[in-house]
């Protein structure tokens, strides 16, 4: 655990909280016999990772990605998966050494300094806000598709209104709901994987000609190689979930074992699902036609393969998946706000727990409020890219943090999981993360850079004297 004493205070005179005394398998211990129970097991951790990721990659992106890169979109997803894995390994190592809430923010603030941590922490919060808005717009598309399926026609597109309604609903539910929904989340993710597993198995057999139907013949790289990488940048939003596992690292049981397995496992699992999905989707229709179906392209793929029941199953799965992704992101965003407020980089009152409901209403509103605004823009691709941008900056810095802390090797640094291939693989991970940013559209990069600059200005103004523990 990072040693040394946190110093300084923010403009309100609040100081960073003291670090816990010890991390054990089942609890985090503070002084005076005060303990924090760890209650999330391996299945719960995987459900957070997979549940956050799978909504976007399968149910929103296939059409968009195929339109950009053709059948090579499958390669775009594979590239994204490899980069995610290169980052997931260092993240897992850091998380086993520092199993605390806040994930990437915590590692970077302790290994690279408070300023970098503040930029990443505020970026993580807003990155999750952008990601959640993106999932909700995706959800809006699915509800619209359901309405179209049952023959309801509306004078205006219901995509954005539906997204807004669900943004408000989810925020309200997370503030007022005291029912334990973690078990429900596990069931939803299990159900999704089952539906997708069956569907994809059938799709692969069909694509290989087992059922004797013709597949759409096509060129792998109809638009050359560049779109493969720019599409990888776009769809990288499908790989943000493993970092969400790290944001609840403080609540994971047996962190030494469960954190690496949940992070690496969820990345590998979704990568396989994504690549197979794109393969099936492009084989079924051809990339050009697939591209014209937009966000709900998978519904048409299912209809083509399995008729109406297939379409209904995928519609249902799409609703569940985008909903659970948005929900998981709101909760993670609220955890990020808590982590920043604990370290006096945001006001302490931002993580206040409501006395009536026991929920952090301020932090949840700090997630839900901006999400509503962003959903209103309806810009699926920009929302996705800004979310990816902010996460990619964090991912690159996580890799650098790993290299820095290993080089310095402070006494408290004792990870139980060690990244293979260091320093080469983490360095490649950092370079790849930053390089992917270069393939995004200008608007997304500009928004991301502005958020980072504002984060730094906030830090200098609000908490410029705060120096967190572990720094040298």
């Amino acid at each position, binding site marked *: 655990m990072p040693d040394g004493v946190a110093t300084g205070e923010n403009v309100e005179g609040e100081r960073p909280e003291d670090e816990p005394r010890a991390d054990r398998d089942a609890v985090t211990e503070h002084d005076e*016999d005060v*303990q924090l129970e760890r209650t999330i097991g391996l299945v719960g951790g995987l459900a957070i990772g997979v549940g956050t990721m799978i909504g976007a990659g399968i149910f929103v992106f296939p059409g968009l990605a195929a339109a950009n890169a053709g059948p090579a979109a499958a390669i775009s997803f594979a590239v994204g998966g490899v980069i995610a894995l290169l980052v997931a390994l260092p993240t897992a190592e850091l998380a086993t050494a520092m199993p605390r809430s806040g994930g990437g923010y915590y590692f970077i603030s302790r290994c690279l300094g408070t300023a970098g941590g503040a930029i990443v922490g505020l970026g993580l919060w807003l990155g999750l806000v952008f990601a959640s808005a993106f999932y909700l717009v995706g959800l809006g598309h699915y509800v619209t598709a359901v309405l179209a399926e049952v023959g309801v026609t509306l004078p205006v597109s219901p995509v954005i209104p539906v997204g807004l309604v669900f943004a408000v609903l989810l925020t309200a539910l997370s503030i007022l709901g005291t029912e334990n929904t*973690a078990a429900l989340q596990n069931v939803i993710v299990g159900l999704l994987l089952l539906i997708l597993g069956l569907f994809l198995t059938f799709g692969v057999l069909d694509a290989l000609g087992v059922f004797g139907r013709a597949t759409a013949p096509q060129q792998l790289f109809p638009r050359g190689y560049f779109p493969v990488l720019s599409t990888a940048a776009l769809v990288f939003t499908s790989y943000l979930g493993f970092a969400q596992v790290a944001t*609840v690292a403080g609540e994971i049981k047996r962190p030494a074992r469960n954190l690496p397995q949940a992070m690496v496992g969820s990345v590998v699992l979704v990568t396989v699902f994504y690549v197979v999905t794109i393969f099936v989707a492009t084989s079924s229709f051809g990339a050009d036609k697939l591209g014209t179906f937009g966000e709900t392209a998978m519904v048409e793929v299912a209809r083509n393969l399995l008729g109406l029941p297939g379409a209904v199953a995928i519609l249902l799965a799409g609703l569940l998946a985008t909903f659970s992704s948005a929900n998981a992101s709101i909760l993670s965003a609220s955890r990020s706000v808590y982590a920043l407020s604990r370290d006096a980089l945001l006001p302490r009152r931002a993580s206040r*727990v409501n006395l009536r409901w026991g929920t952090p209403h301020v932090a949840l509103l700090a997630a839900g409020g901006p999400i509503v605004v962003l959903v209103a823009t309806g810009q699926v691709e920009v929302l996705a890219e800004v979310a990816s941008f902010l996460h990619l900056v964090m991912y690159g810095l996580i890799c650098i943090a790993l290299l820095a802390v290993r080089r310095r090797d402070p006494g408290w640094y004792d990870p139980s999981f060690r990244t293979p291939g260091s320093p080469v693989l983490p360095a490649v991970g950092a370079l790849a993360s930053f390089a992917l940013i270069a393939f995004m559209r200008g608007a997304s990069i500009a928004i991301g850079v502005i958020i980072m600059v504002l984060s730094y200005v906030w830090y200098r103004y609000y908490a410029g004297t705060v120096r967190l523990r572990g720094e040298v």
Partner: protein
Amino acid sequence: MPERPAVLVPVRVLAGESIPEGVPELLAHAHVVLLGVHVIPEQTAPGQARMQFEERGNRKLDEYEAVFEDAGATVERRLVFTHEAQQTVDRMIYEHDCLAVLVPNATSAPEEVLVPVRGTVGIDRLATVVAGLFGPTDAAVTLYHVVGPEETDEDVTVLLEGLSDRLTEAGLPADRIHTATASPEDTVDAIAAMAEDFDAVVMGETDPSLTTYLFGMPADAVADQFLGPVLVVQRERPDDAETAPE
């Protein structure tokens, strides 16, 4: 002087629960493991609740710790923030080798204690708790067995006398031990009805099975009907069990 049996006393300190009257006297000869537990919804990080509630929780625990110590118990305490109360209770039982868990309800100073006995399983632990807590007091202990259809009188006598002997060996005088039997339909109802004339109940935990999964633990059912305190003697935990399963 027998060793003090460790008894876990879980209290939801921040939900207004307190130590009911009579409980400190009941546990005067126990080693009390005082667990202040605060259950939070999953939207809230345990550390987040700690920042806000640690001070208040500790103040309450200070108060309760003093009450138990004044009554004569030795006390160890923890304040735990958790999403799952049951997991925390199980972990505390394991980590602190607790023989029994208290379901706290108000009572008067214990004079009459009911000890329902199911069978020979776990009888050593039951004897340790009963003799440890009530040996040094003046309380009378009634061993109560609900006779099953396939049990002979001889079986019952062997069971109750066996326990009686163990209690006497462990320091509870024989003249304060009584026995009673009955053969009604419903065990839980019979125990709860019988308990009305007693100040406290000490009974064994049932092994988890489909029945306990569907209908809950008999000890919990008794505690719901009987308005006094129930001490639930825990099954033996295997030594190599994980503190946090999975």
